[in-house]
């Protein structure tokens, strides 16, 4: 019997204070579910929004506290901060906590967009009852009765929870569970758009099927890694990898399969095909949340897996990442030129940005205390990308016509005259995406390129800058459309948002400029975070 050789069971040690931000978000999500059950419908929306926002704010405060209390550790010649907690399940280290902060800020901005109700005549952007068939009597009835899916707040909180755990998971099993916790609510939220229900449902289905497919690949990779190293812990896998104990085939297969799952989440080519459809179909606030949050969490997880666990096999995976980075930049930038829908265009832009992020990653540059490492450059890039993306999608929610959001690019013509503030902000985000100096996007590009070059991949940098030029072309096209083209017909209406959306747009625009002019503090944060603790 194998009961005999089991070690005695003891209660685990959990550093509650370290993982408190995660716990706060969990509590907020659970509380949201409870609110859903107990608070009467008329007041539910407000209470839900308040719970989610307060939870995120509290978590932000706590994250800052946690970050300040992280201890510096030295290991393997590199410095990092933080420690492995909860019996090896989570690694609360500098990059991880900074990622938490990012995710929480993105979530806060997105939640404000979720809570916007002025655009749909007092209703949120989410369908009243997802179970009703589009265009059915039930749907009309639900709208008339002002029914709303207030579940989006707890769902988004759960997704946020998954993202936070995903970014700090120190063990592949935790990582897989977190992957699902972050994905499943998003699958559902994609299908909740109030307008264009069919499109939205389809997006949910596609996202779900492909997402499940890719996460199974990730999982099989996890299983093979376990088979290789006999443990799910990244640190132990790293030991096995550096001593090359097991069969190389197993290791390589494992790396490849896990890469598929992770690259899917960051929408790198050739695992990108879901991105445009899902970005287009999902309710725009959800798209914003997803675009910023998922990419951030998944990228940090990708870095963690490859740098910590497979750090000893760098020469096996770097060339592949190299190629994927190039292909992703190329395809993302090129195909987006042909797009006529704003949301699809932003989706392809998101693919292109995944490519640029991969450039920083492919550098695999560990860095020293005073130099930009791959990790800190990617963190910075994610910050600026996430902020600009949320801002851009926030603006998309405001340009409307009778059918909801007017996402066709031709409807955006002449926006510069109709609403200089909106068009100017959008142009600012576009310029930031394009990496024009004095916007945050430029500093981000600089950071990832310097990481790649420091890692010895200067040809990649050259390809990267050329791809930036291609990408710039379509961002510029949008600006041309908004400022240099006269509107066709009577043009779209620009909805007057409540203070929520206005805040989001103003804050993201301000942050984009600020990070472009004074990137120092954020860079300091990203750099000070140090390396991953193993």
């Amino acid at each position: 019997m194998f009961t005999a050789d089991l070690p005695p069971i003891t209660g685990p040690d959990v550093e509650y204070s370290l993982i408190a931000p995660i716990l706060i978000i969990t509590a907020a999500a659970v509380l949201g579910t409870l609110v859903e059950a107990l608070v009467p419908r008329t007041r539910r929306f407000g209470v839900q929004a308040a719970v989610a926002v307060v939870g995120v704010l509290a978590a932000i405060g706590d994250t800052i506290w946690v970050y300040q209390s992280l201890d510096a550790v030295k290991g393997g010649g590199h410095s990092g901060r933080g420690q492995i907690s909860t019996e090896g399940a989570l690694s609360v280290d500098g990059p991880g906590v900074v990622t938490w902060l990012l995710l929480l800020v993105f979530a806060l901005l997105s939640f404000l967009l979720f809570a916007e109700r002025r655009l749909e005549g007092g209703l949120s952007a989410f369908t009243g009852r997802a179970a009703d068939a589009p265009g059915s009597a039930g749907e009309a009835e639900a709208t008339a009765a002002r029914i709303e899916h207030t579940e989006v707040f707890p769902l988004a909180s759960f997704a946020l929870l998954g993202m936070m755990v995903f970014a700090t998971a120190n063990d592949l099993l935790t990582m897989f569970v977190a992957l699902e916790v972050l994905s499943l609510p998003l699958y559902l939220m994609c299908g909740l758009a109030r307008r264009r229900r069919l499109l939205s449902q389809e997006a949910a289905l596609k996202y779900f099927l492909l997402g499940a497919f890719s996460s199974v690949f990730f999982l099989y990779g996890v299983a093979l890694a376990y088979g290789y190293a006999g443990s799910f812990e990244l640190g132990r896998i790293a030991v096995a990898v550096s001593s090359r104990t097991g069969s190389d085939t197993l290791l390589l297969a494992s790396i490849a399969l896990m890469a598929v799952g992770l690259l899917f989440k960051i929408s790198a080519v050739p695992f990108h095909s879901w991105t445009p459809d899902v970005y287009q179909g999902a309710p725009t606030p959800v798209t914003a949340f997803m675009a910023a949050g998922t990419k951030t969490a998944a990228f940090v997880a990708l870095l963690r897996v490859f740098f910590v666990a497979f750090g000893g096999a760098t020469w096996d995976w770097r060339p592949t990442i190299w190629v994927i980075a190039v292909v992703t930049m190329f395809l993302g930038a090129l195909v987006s030129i042909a797009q006529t829908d704003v949301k699809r265009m932003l989706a392809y832009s998101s693919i292109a940005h995944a490519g640029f992020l991969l450039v920083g990653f492919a550098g695999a540059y560990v860095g020293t205390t005073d130099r930009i490492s791959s990790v800190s450059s990617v963190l910075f890039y994610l910050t600026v990308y996430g902020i600009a993306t949320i801002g851009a999608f926030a603006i998309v929610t405001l340009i409307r016509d009778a059918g909801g959001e007017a996402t066709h690019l031709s409807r955006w013509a002449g926006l510069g005259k109709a609403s200089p503030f909106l068009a100017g902000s959008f142009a600012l985000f576009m310029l930031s995406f394009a990496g024009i100096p004095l916007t945050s996007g430029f500093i981000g590009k600089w950071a990832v390129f310097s990481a790649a070059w420091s890692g010895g991949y200067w040809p990649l940098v050259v390809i990267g800058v050329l791809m930036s030029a291609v990408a710039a072309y379509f961002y510029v096209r949008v600006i041309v459309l908004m400022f240099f083209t006269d509107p066709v017909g009577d043009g779209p209406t620009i909805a007057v948002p409540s203070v929520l959306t206005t805040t989001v747009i103003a804050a993201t625009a301000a942050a984009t400029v600020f990070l472009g002019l004074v990137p120092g503090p954020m860079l300091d944060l990203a750099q000070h975070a140090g390396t991953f603790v193993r």
Partner: protein
Amino acid sequence: MSDLFGHEPFWVVGLKALLIFVILVLYTLFNIWFERRVVARMQHRIGPNVHGPFGLLQSLADGVKLALKEDIVVKAADKLVYVAAPILATIPAFLAWAVIPFGPEAKIPFTDTTTPLQLTDLPVAVLYILAVTSIGVYGIVLAGWSSGSTYALLGGMRSSAQVISYEVAMGLSFVSVFMYAGSMSTSEIVAAQSDTWYFLPLFPSFVIYVIAMVGETNRAPFDLPEAEGELVGGFHTEYSSLKFALFFLAEYVNMVTVSALATTLFLGGWRAPFGIPHVWDGANSGYWPVLWFLGKTLCFIFLFIWLRGTLPRLRYDQFMAFGWKILIPVSLAWIVAVAFIRKLRSEDMLDQKTLIWAAVVAGVLLLATFLVPEKKPALRQAQEPQSDSPEFDAFAGGYPVPPMPEKVDIPKEARR
């Protein structure tokens, strides 16, 4: 758990397996007879009394009759699944018995070998039973589906919904037993009950289990899958001959299985009833425990029959509501209470006497609730419209008028 499990010679295993099989078949034949006799008594009839002594051979005769009936495979059926379904229903019913302990270690007559009176045991035996019995549901669902008949399909669907609904409550009722026994192995659970049978300290769990086990086995008053008034025969409407007999057999074996599990988990398994071991040392050794075990099982069988004889069938929504809205929350609450009390007890923060008094008070309070009159449903309906919306006068000013849009009743969903 005895070290012998997994290390016995093959012939011992074979012998034990065969015995279990034979016992189960015979027990089933007996149970069918037993049920008919008891129900007959309850209805002031006599029941089968012609074939064999007291009519004991009646079931056997019925079996033989079924074997001689025409075996019909309906045209609309999905042939392969249709044939496989009864097999799939039967095998798991027997399998659960592999881990049921009939008694302690005993010497096999005419040999020197001692063996536990249990086919085998696993560290996760109870989990295994749960797993195996739920496979039986496949037999029922597939039977219903493959018959290509509406009644059968509905029966199969109902059956599966019912079984999984009550499985939750059943599974939850085990948790407190595991907490007390510290194991999922059946023999260890029985061993842990040498002092107190668990139905006493864990009475609510026991009650929940007993209710759930009736639901699990599709027996009255929860026999909705084969509610003959609504669904003719339910999932086995289209089955005949020996295939039908197999379903019949599986149902009765399942009854015995859940009864045996109840005995094992709550009634001390094969242990002799209270007092007997004190006056008679040999009561818990040799082959006597088999007697106690079967006896306790028979009590549960009687309970089944008694329920069938007295209670009417539930409506389906009542039945589901009972499972989901009463059994589950009660189980959850009870688990929390058990965990808390047990922790306090092990930390010496709560003594036995206080606990017993608390249990008595709780029991009295529970009984007292039965004295509170039920709310009249009619009363509630009368109040409802007022609370929802201002009353609408359809004849305002003496003429019939349609309601204003805002006065239209909010759909039911909207209020949730």
